[in-house]
């Protein structure tokens, strides 16, 4: 259209161009000044509010060789009914109601594998009544043995004694990961954002459905550590999980409805290789590269004492608990002490 206009239009075009540039700059400025601190504070409040709500949820953790889920109904910290499934096989079910806890172990091998990954010093005493009943897949109830309310401090991804704690503390872990993110911690997702948290090519998360009323918030990744000295051959401090974790939090009406988290160094593999002088084998598949990175990071951070670094995808889907839902200890459970399952 500009080309059909004469010299006067050139001035107009420049004027419009200036207006356009000014508008773009203003838009970028306004979006970058959208009270990021307030946004992070609001998101922390949304997560805290969700943690205090009765809900049913499914937490899924997909690692290179294991997929595990915890699903169930959570009325409050003293009343819940959860099921642990490992690689598609139901493995462990637990009901807590006030002072009572009931457990049923359906796949002892899967449960033992979980404990070994968490360095949990737990075994099922087959010689005792409770152990024998559990190994025979019976419900066992301990009327005064309810596990203590799981709590988490500022640490992230610490060892957990059982998968139920891991699922119940996932929201707390995410809250802590947000706090570890570089300022401004979070940014509201927009499909046409000119400065998104995750570049479209590296964004593993779906956009919220249009008209769903769901807002997505993305958490900034902590940049990889850099060398602090000029000494030849110096390497940076070991990376941590927050260097490779992408998080998207989906919120509706002030409540978290879904969280997607990926821990995967694939986007930063070359930088990892360069910074730590690693030798990356050629022609690796994506899975091979992920396994290489997982092993390399575990070796780099072996002295930190935290959980081994795992390439994983975690998802939490939350819904309100239907009205009238009742949490009940299964009838016919074998009464026995279960303190070996729930060391305090």
């Amino acid at each position, binding site marked *: 259209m500009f080309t059909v206009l004469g010299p006067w239009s050139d001035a107009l075009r420049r004027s419009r161009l200036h207006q356009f540039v000014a508008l773009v700059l203003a838009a970028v400025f306004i979006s970058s000044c959208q009270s990021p601190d307030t946004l992070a504070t609001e998101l922390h409040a949304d997560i805290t509010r969700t943690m205090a709500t009765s809900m049913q949820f499914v937490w899924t953790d997909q690692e290179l060789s294991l997929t595990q889920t915890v699903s169930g109904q959570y009325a*409050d*910290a*003293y009343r819940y009914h959860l099921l642990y499934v490992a690689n598609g096989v139901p493995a462990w079910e637990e009901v807590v109601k006030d*002072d009572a806890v009931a457990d049923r172990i359906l796949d002892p091998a899967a449960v033992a594998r979980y404990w070994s990954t968490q360095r949990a010093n737990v075994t099922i005493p087959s010689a005792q009544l409770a152990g024998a009943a559990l190994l025979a897949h019976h419900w066992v109830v301990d009327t005064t043995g309810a596990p203590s309310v799981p709590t988490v401090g500022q640490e992230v991804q610490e060892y957990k004694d059982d998968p139920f704690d891991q699922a119940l503390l996932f929201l707390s872990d995410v809250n802590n990961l947000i706090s570890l993110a570089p300022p401004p911690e979070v940014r509201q997702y927009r499909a046409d954002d000119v400065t998104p948290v995750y570049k479209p090519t590296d964004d593993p998360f779906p956009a919220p459905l249009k008209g769903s009323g769901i807002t997505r918030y993305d958490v900034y990744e902590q940049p990889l550590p850099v060398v602090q000295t000029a000494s030849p051959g110096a390497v940076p401090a070991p990376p941590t999980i927050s260097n490779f974790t992408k998080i998207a939090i989906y919120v509706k009406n002030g409540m978290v409805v879904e969280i997607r988290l990926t821990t995967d160094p694939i986007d930063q593999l070359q930088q990892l290789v360069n910074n730590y002088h690693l030798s990356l084998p050629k022609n690796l598949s994506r899975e091979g590269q992920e396994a290489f990175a997982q092993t390399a990071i575990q070796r780099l951070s072996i002295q930190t004492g935290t959980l081994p670094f795992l390439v994983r995808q975690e998802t939490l889907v939350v819904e309100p608990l239907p009205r009238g839902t009742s949490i009940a200890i299964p009838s016919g459970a074998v009464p026995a002490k279960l303190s070996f399952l729930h060391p305090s």
Partner: protein
Amino acid sequence: MPIKTTAAVRIGDIPASALPATLNGLRVQPESDKAAVSHADGSYARAVGFYSLRQSQLVEATLEVIELVPSTPNTAGFRLSLVNQVTGGIPSEVRLSGHSVYLASGIGSATSTWFDGRVLFILTTRSQYSTPRALLEATLGVHLS
């Protein structure tokens, strides 16, 4: 943040009839804390009740009920600082029966603290008591009108 108390006010008693005779099977027995209360120079408390919860003669728990004066700040921050003074640290918070309950463990005991309107409840239970959660649940059902 230290809590700034109000000018001296007369602190009344919460009558024993305000509470049920038993809670989770434990007998509710009023205890006198006149001496402690009389030494308070200034307080946000308008009335106080102190009770032991007994199985036979054994004290399994104690319950302190404090009605706050209307001028008490009604903010989350103030309430949390009050709870921190009660528990002596940063307690964990859980949502139970519509209340934010602050849980703290001590040596040989556990303390649960919550607000019901302008009334502060402090329930301290012996660690050996077998059904502390059921007791807490029963006590959460107590409302002072």
